[in-house]
């Protein structure tokens, strides 16, 4: 990690708290992610992991504490929210491709309408990313004609078309058939090796071992443990982590 990167963390969360009504869903979250770092977030369902990463691009609003993304503070300021969303790409569990648009249109929509990229240039970039996720031949089909794994790879390419500095993954493989998980993970590994700053909510522990710089374990809205994958899997510190790992690693 260079010193310049250390100055402006990609993501900075300080004493972040969030409630759904009376339910305290995020409690005292403190997290710094350096540029280029790969973070895997895991934990039982309802532990707040999705909510945490959704706060980073303001799909969810936090009520207390500070979040800065690439130095931009996330407040009610709409311009800041727009700026952050341009920097942050997101991949969802349920793909969320736009079913009324072709794959190519899905990929070029945001560059054309948000970044004002000329259409030809946007299409060229789209083909580059489609090639990178290994499905350039599907460019003119509709999302409904693709398999789940292909759709998720398109969703990754769609996010990449905006040239984000940070990528958020919200359980990207949880809705996939077992046969298709691998093709999506391969794309994500490729991305990680390319130096992308990534925050992944996932239960793919092999993926965490392979690419993560840090693994974060959450439970009941708190960060319970933060560790290198090596330590996390072989020598977890918190009893809660140990219990969780026992459940998922059989």
């Amino acid at each position, binding site marked *: 990690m260079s010193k310049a990167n250390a100055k402006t963390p990609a993501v900075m969360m300080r004493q972040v708290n969030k409630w759904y009504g009376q339910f305290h869903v995020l409690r005292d979250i403190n997290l710094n992610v350096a540029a280029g770092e790969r973070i895997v977030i895991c934990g039982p369902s309802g532990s707040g992991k999705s909510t945490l990463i959704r706060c980073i691009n*303001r799909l969810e609003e936090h009520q207390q504490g500070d979040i800065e993304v690439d130095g931009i503070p996330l407040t009610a300021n709409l311009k800041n929210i727009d700026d952050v969303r341009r920097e942050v790409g997101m991949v969802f569990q349920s793909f969320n491709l736009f*079913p*009324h648009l072709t794959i190519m249109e899905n990929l070029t*929509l945001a560059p054309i309408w*948000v970044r004002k990229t000329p259409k030809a240039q946007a299409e060229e970039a789209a083909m580059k990313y489609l090639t990178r996720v290994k499905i350039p031949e599907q460019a003119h089909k509709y999302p409904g004609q693709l398999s789940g794994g292909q759709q998720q790879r398109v969703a990754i390419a769609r996010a990449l078309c905006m040239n984000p500095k940070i990528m958020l993954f919200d359980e990207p493989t949880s809705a996939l058939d077992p046969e298709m998980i691998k093709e999506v993970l391969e794309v994500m590994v490729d991305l990680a090796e390319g130096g992308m700053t990534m925050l992944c909510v996932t239960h793919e522990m092999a993926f965490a071992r392979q690419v993560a710089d840090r693994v974060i374990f959450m439970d009941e809205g708190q960060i319970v443990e933060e560790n290198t994958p090596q330590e996390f899997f072989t020598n977890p510190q918190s009893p809660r982590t140990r219990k969780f790992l026992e459940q998922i690693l059989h």
Partner: protein
Amino acid sequence: MAYVRASEAPKMAAPKGTIGFAAWAKDKLYPTPLSGLGTVAIAALFLAVSWNLLQWAGLRAVWSAPDRELCAVEGAGACWPFVFAKFHQWIYGLYPFEERWRVNIVYVLGVISLAGLMVPSVPGKRWNALFFFVAFPIIAFFLFYGGILGLPVVETDYWGGLTLTLIIAVTGIVASVPFGILLALGRRSQMPVVRILCVVFIEGVRGVPFITVLFMASVMFPLFMPPGVNPDKLLKAIIGGGLFASAYMAEVVRGGLQAIPKGQIEAAQALGLSYWKMMGLIVMPQALKIVIPGIVNSFISLFQDTSLVTIIGLFDLLGIVQAGFNDAKWKSPQTGNTGYLALAIIYFIFCFSMSRYSQYIERRTNRGLKK
């Protein structure tokens, strides 16, 4: 016990009697004796009614006559000469005879540009839309009303018939879509003031019959205006119709909005699309596609509801047809029946066309989305 298939199972043709017309008829027309009986009974009723109608409207009908004489004969069927004689009036209303070419030009312009918009393969949709929605209404107004380029002024009191029906219906239809969309979005707005205003408007308008809206527009509206300001009767009817249709359209559109998964909105937001771009590019195209049948239902309703403007003294198609019944030259027992049948056919042609076109559009927008 292990089992391994040694040879491929043969692919055989379907057994006799399970496909083809005979099988279809057995399955659909007389699967049981009782339902077979039902089929025959319904077919008999249908034939009887059709035969009576055919006799009256065709075999016993009067096809040409100079006046009521032949139609008034005992046992005569439909009085079609009445329809032929009045047909021009049905289309133009009381519009002065020597100025009707102006109406014709509007019809030609309207049909050409509308066809250009509706047929997908015609190029230049953007210019065509600009013409139809912006230039055409202005041109049409000045052609109808006159007062420029030496055209004599024709007051709206003389506008009537099918032309008037189409003026009110098309204006209402065209206005109801954008206003309906805005009202639907307003009703789902996060801002309470906007939301409450939209809810009050939508529920207020939907809570009263169209006749009430028309009466309010024509009788009560002037009470709220400064003295001496009394907008044109037709204008009030158009505004009333547009507002009424917008409220219904808003609810149709809201139905579509509710069917869009939250993930679509989140994906659009995550890509940095602003509210209006998200709505215009992602949400509305999907929502409106889902509710095409409901939208066209609203169009058809409004088209038919225009016949209520007779009540505030406008002579739309229905009004002008009914006015013709009092013509002493054509008064006969069959004049009214024939007039109403012809009227029904005209309304049917318009409404059925809208219905068919919407089905075509539905099929077309579904293309490519299916596996």
